[in-house]
């Protein structure tokens, strides 16, 4: 879990562009492997940005599908209403191939969508003329790294040059998404991780004491600090006397976030924005301040809240570190997003850049 892969059970993964820096998270290992050329593609899971953000930090292409597009059966559950599996690869064309293989209805996942899967590769026409592309003003606010702002803005200009019609739009609920996510995801997580008690499978701490003590020690030693933090947050948010003020309220805000996007997609076909306000930061820089770590995901979280598909596309560098352009679409518009990314990648070379290792 987390936005830097520093919470890994094994060890922190290093960014191939600068091994003193994080690869992003939580699918940082997958993004780093593809970026370093160790794998042609990888799968990641995106609950609050965990495919898009590491893809942007590592200069590779990543896609989070519409919630329910890819089955969650077999995926260790973190936040059931937010989790989605998606591809991380070198370009949109590869992502299209992988998505083709993993998308579709699964009768073992009751949240899996019944909709037919289109031919994603056939959708890569390379033509985006007339595409109405929205730029949400709230995603370009203060606090963004200047190099990130420059690279993303240039990318949007490039898309305009390729035929897209750029429009300014507004998503007023953007500021609430972080708080909303950090109530809903930990709440669902606290229940999803309850099964890991060492009684049935997995790590089990042996020692003196009764069963309850053994369970507590298993979880004490078996879970990392960020996971424990989220379990505690979640249990608190769901507890008697607090449920209405936190969990219930967050779900209501979530509906508003969804409505915000639905409203905007009446005017435009897709949105372009940064993936993260920053580029890859040094290992250890944000580990002491969890909230500062959470802020890295402010632009990716709203997408999960609304269940929408989104991509991260390499669009430049800031101080030698990759920057990602985020493309967001309405439900089940993966084909459209892949085509926008593909068209951009036909006209640019950022996705072909390789780290020196």
């Amino acid at each position, binding site marked *: 879990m987390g936005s830097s892969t520093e919470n890994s059970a094994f060890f922190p993964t290093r960014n191939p562009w600068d091994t003193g820096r994080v690869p992003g998270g939580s699918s940082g290992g997958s993004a780093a492997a593809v970026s370093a050329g160790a794998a042609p593609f990888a799968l990641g899971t995106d609950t609050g940005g965990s495919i898009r953000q590491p893809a942007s930090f590592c200069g590779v292409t990543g896609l989070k599908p519409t919630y329910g597009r890819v089955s*969650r*059966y077999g995926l260790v559950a973190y936040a059931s209403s937010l989790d989605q599996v998606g591809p991380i690869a070198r370009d949109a064309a590869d992502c299209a191939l992988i998505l083709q293989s993993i998308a579709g209805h699964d009768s073992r996942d*009751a949240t899996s969508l019944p909709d037919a899967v289109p031919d994603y590769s056939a959708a890569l026409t390379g033509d985006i003329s007339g595409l109405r592309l929205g730029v949400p003003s709230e995603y370009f606010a203060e606090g963004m790294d200047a190099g990130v702002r420059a690279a993303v803005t240039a990318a949007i200009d490039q898309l305009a040059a390729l035929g897209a019609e750029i429009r300014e739009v507004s998503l007023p609920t953007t500021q609430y998404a972080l708080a909303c996510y950090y109530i809903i995801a930990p709440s669902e997580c606290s229940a999803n991780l309850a*099964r890991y*008690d060492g009684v*049935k499978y997995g790590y089990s701490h042996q020692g003196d004491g009764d*069963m309850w003590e053994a369970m507590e020690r298993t979880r004490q030693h078996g879970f990392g600090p960020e996971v424990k933090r989220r379990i505690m947050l979640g249990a608190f948010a769901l507890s*008697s006397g607090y*449920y209405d003020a936190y969990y219930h309220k967050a779900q209501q805000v979530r509906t508003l976030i969804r409505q915000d996007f639905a409203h905007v997609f009446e005017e435009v076909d897709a949105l372009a924005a940064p993936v993260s306000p920053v580029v890859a930061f040094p290992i250890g820089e944000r580990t002491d301040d969890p909230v500062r770590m959470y802020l890295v995901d402010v632009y990716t979280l709203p997408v999960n809240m609304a269940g929408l598909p989104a991509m991260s596309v390499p669009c430049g560098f800031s101080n030698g570190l990759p920057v990602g352009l985020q493309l967001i679409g309405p439900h089940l518009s993966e084909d459209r997003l892949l085509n926008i990314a593909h068209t951009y990648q036909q006209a640019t070379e950022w996705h072909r850049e390789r780290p020196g290792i």
Partner: protein
Amino acid sequence: MFCGCPADYQAAEPNTRTCPVCLGLPGALPVINRRAVEYTVLTGLALNCRIPEFTKFDRKNYPYPDLMKGYQISQYDLPLALDGFLEIDGDTQLGLGRRRIGVERVHLEEDVAKSYDDRGEGYSLVDVNRSGVPLMEVVSKPDMRSAEEARQYLTLLHSIVQYLGVSTGNMQDGNFRCDANVSIRPVGSQILGTRTEVKNMNSFRAVYQALEYEVVRQREVIEDGGAVVQETRGWIEEREVTVSQRSKEYAHDYRYFPEPDLPPLRIGPERVAELAAELPEFAPQRSARFQADLALSGYDADLLAGSRSMANYFETTLTLRDADAAEVANWMLGDLARLLNQDHREIDASPVTPQRLADLLALVADGTLSTSLAKTVLEEMYATGGEPADIVREQGLGQISDTGAIEAAVAEAIAANPKAVADYISGKDTAARFLMGQVMRLTKGQAQPELALRLVQEGLELQKTRGSLEP
């Protein structure tokens, strides 16, 4: 409830009815069992409940080794059925007549695994077969006023779920369970007293006894100047008492929240109407109809209507053979029931089908078999599953109604029993019956009894005449 494993957990070897879903393995997801939802809606309808259009499942979170996921998928605030009732006769000893007992709600959830704490020192065993089996919970309102009323309510509820085919309703097997909440209050008070929850009652009788015991116990507590503690108490069958089950664990906050892995359900009025059309005529109505239309006694009608399969068997037999309802009832509740009970078999497992029973009764009606012979044939039919006509033919059991054949036996009986003949002549009419019995024995029970008696009497009269003619 959320996977495809068979629900026959009692019969199966431990941990053989499992899969990743009911084991709660990482990555497993639940999928709703449609029929379980339909059964619950049917039960709600049978209990006169309202079926809300929108319903959902929720997670009930608490840690325990028999709860595989660390949460139970249940229903919290939006259950499948609400606000129903059942009509009971009422406890007449308390002066209470027929009235409604409210049903608060009917909801659906998954069962947990089964723990065995008694197998050894320092460990417990868990059988996961039962995990994930659908549980339907019917919660009544505190409208019952005595253990007798509780018994009436349970009996009726039991009959309804059996009739619907929703449950086999066997308390010993754990298919029909009961937890009871009971409180007492001063006569005339409108405020309910502090209640205790009583668990571990494994039969209707246990429920009755436990409630009676608990009422007395609570009364003694209050009369001694104390107050009833709100707690869970277990019924101990061997000692016929309830004991407190308060443990040192703090009370659980279940932290209910809507189950994100399952979409909510919309059950529209059209679907509810379709399901309502599936409702059968229940036992009380069916029994009433048997009494009114078929002139059966209340006792017999209640027995026949008691289970849906019994009632169906009865009505099928009646249609197959335009028979006397009382006659069919007698055979079903008498000899057939005796045979089934010996084997602990339900009537749907009877080798004697309605068709065969009807055929047997036809053989009695046309004189081929006497009633007592028919009983023998029935036993053979039950043992072999054979057709009555075949059995009669194979065993030569056809009733003898040929006068000549019987007369030979009569002559033999008279010749072999001079004392009986003398008794008859001297006025003991009962001797004729004795001789008739001998004739039946000689004809291996196949002589038509009425004919045998008549011929015996004729033969004896002849003896009398001859005797009186003797010098």
